[in-house]
């Protein structure tokens, strides 16, 4: 009887583990959002690239601190297939976003998001938050708070190719 229970628990653990693994790599929703200039940006346009969806806001101090580092990463790893997309989190003011983009020389697209945009990926309340999407459009992970170098090395770098 004990063996039967143990075996059942093992099967359950394997099934649940597989489910968790599968859900961790589920396909990212095909977002279609306007950028700060009103141009439509689709997530599917970046298929084939490793996409970092960075949720941020101009009123969020850690977000603002993180962005210069993201600008550097975009420059450094663009040739290896990295594409960062900034997604603003409300409440946000378009002119404030544009001003901040100019100040920090943001070199990646920024789209205007809503709470629902973020909730399509996570229920976490933390900002900044970065969603990692692989070249096949699957969600490979999430980094809550500022993305530190070691987190980038561990979770993003393995998905990037060598210099093209």
């Amino acid at each position: 009887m004990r063996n039967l229970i143990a075996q059942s628990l093992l099967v359950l653990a394997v099934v649940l583990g597989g489910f968790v693994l599968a859900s961790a790599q589920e396909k990212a929703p095909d977002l279609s959002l306007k950028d700060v200039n009103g141009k439509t940006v689709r997530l599917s346009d970046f298929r084939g690239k490793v996409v970092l969806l960075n949720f941020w806001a101009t009123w969020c101090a850690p977000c603002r601190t993180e962005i210069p580092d993201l600008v550097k990463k975009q420059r450094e790893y663009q040739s290896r297939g990295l594409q960062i997309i900034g997604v603003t989190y409300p409440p946000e003011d378009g002119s404030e976003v544009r001003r901040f983009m100019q100040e920090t020389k943001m070199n990646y697209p920024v789209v205007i998001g809503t709470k629902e945009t973020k909730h399509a990926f996570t229920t976490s309340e933390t900002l900044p938050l970065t969603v990692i999407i692989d070249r096949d459009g699957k969600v490979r992970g999430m980094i809550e708070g500022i993305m530190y170098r070691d987190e980038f090395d561990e979770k993003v770098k393995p998905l990037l190719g060598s210099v093209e």
Partner: protein
Amino acid sequence: MYNIQKAVSRLDYAPKLKEIEVTDIKKGLGVFTPKPEKAVSFAALKATLKSAGYVLDSADITVAGTLSKDGDSWTVIAKPSGQKFVLEGPNVANVVTGIEDGSSIEITGSWKTEGQGANAREIIAPAEKKHALRDPRTNLYSARFVSAIFFTTYPSPDVDNSTEAPDPAAPIRVTSPGLTVYKGGAITPRVYLVRQHLGSLKVNRQIVDVSLSYTPSPHIQLEVEVPISRTSFHDQATSGSGVGLANITAWTKYRFFRQVKTYGDRQAAARFGLELPTGKKDAPDQSQINVPAFVRQQLTPINGGLAPHFDLAFSQAGGRFIFGGNAEAVFRTERDGFRMGHEQRFSTDLEYVLLPREYTKPGGELFLILETTFVHRGTGRLNGTPVAGSSATEYYLAPGLQYAALPRFVVEGSVQFPVVRNIGPMTLQTDVNVLVGVKYLF
């Protein structure tokens, strides 16, 4: 998860992320117990918070170890890391008095790092001493860090940016209850100087009104308001005065809507108040002032007995302007046969942020305020019967200034005067109402 927690957790001496407690996210306060075997560094704590966008204002640390005399200075050598903490500051002599070199001691104080690299020293300016160690294996250290609001001055929504600034203080004139629900406490003493008349009867009132409020959550505010009133009166023949407690009111406010936008908050709240029959009810008698009994009752600090207040308010900010309005109804019950009429109030409040022209940090903000109040009071009652000529309809303007000297300290002054009055012959007419008040948030 808060960004502060994540930043601190990256220190080699920090515990696991979930063991770093953020005790007050608005004030940027947190507490954690470093790993006892690791050496700690204030400079490293400051640097890691800086990397996450915060400025560390100050930190306190509690260290348990062995007191040691090192030349002229006293040190505490922590166990088991062996890290040396130098004691400095005015309280050192007091703290070590009566304790022998080599004794166990627990010291709490303000913490800093002096020097860099191999020359770095951890300094504690002691605040207190404790001889008895609770448990030498645990709680060897507990460090408290304080991170200041910096970098952004924008309002933040109900998500974690770990730097949510206190909401701006609301206008404090009672005609505008304000919508700001500041999480924490506030004390608001106000002084009103009111001049009234009715024919040859002149009345002056000085009211000290102290409000104490507490906001346990961003949606709920509890408040109690205690007014004390001094009333003096005279006509051509007689004069007199009296001092007494007015009716204490208990308030609860529920902010049911809040849409936060950069430079454009919009919010709405409902407020319920219960005016308690605590005020002094004894009116001057006919020999003291020769006016009808209903008028004499108005010389007391009260308008009647138990009175529920219902209030609905909204506000909208946009750029440098803030506009608000509220509708209030007061239903009065009689006390010893007297009450003023039921009241309806409609108020608006327009504010303009005059200073600073360039916002760099909270505090030093000057607001121009213009409040308008429409009041209709129904027929009052005395000894169970309606009093003819006791109703009133009035419209007031109240220009004023509000100065938020510090983010938690606000001073306000305004002058309210009537522009339209339709008042029955049995009701005192208000000529002017000067308000001076301060608000302190804690």
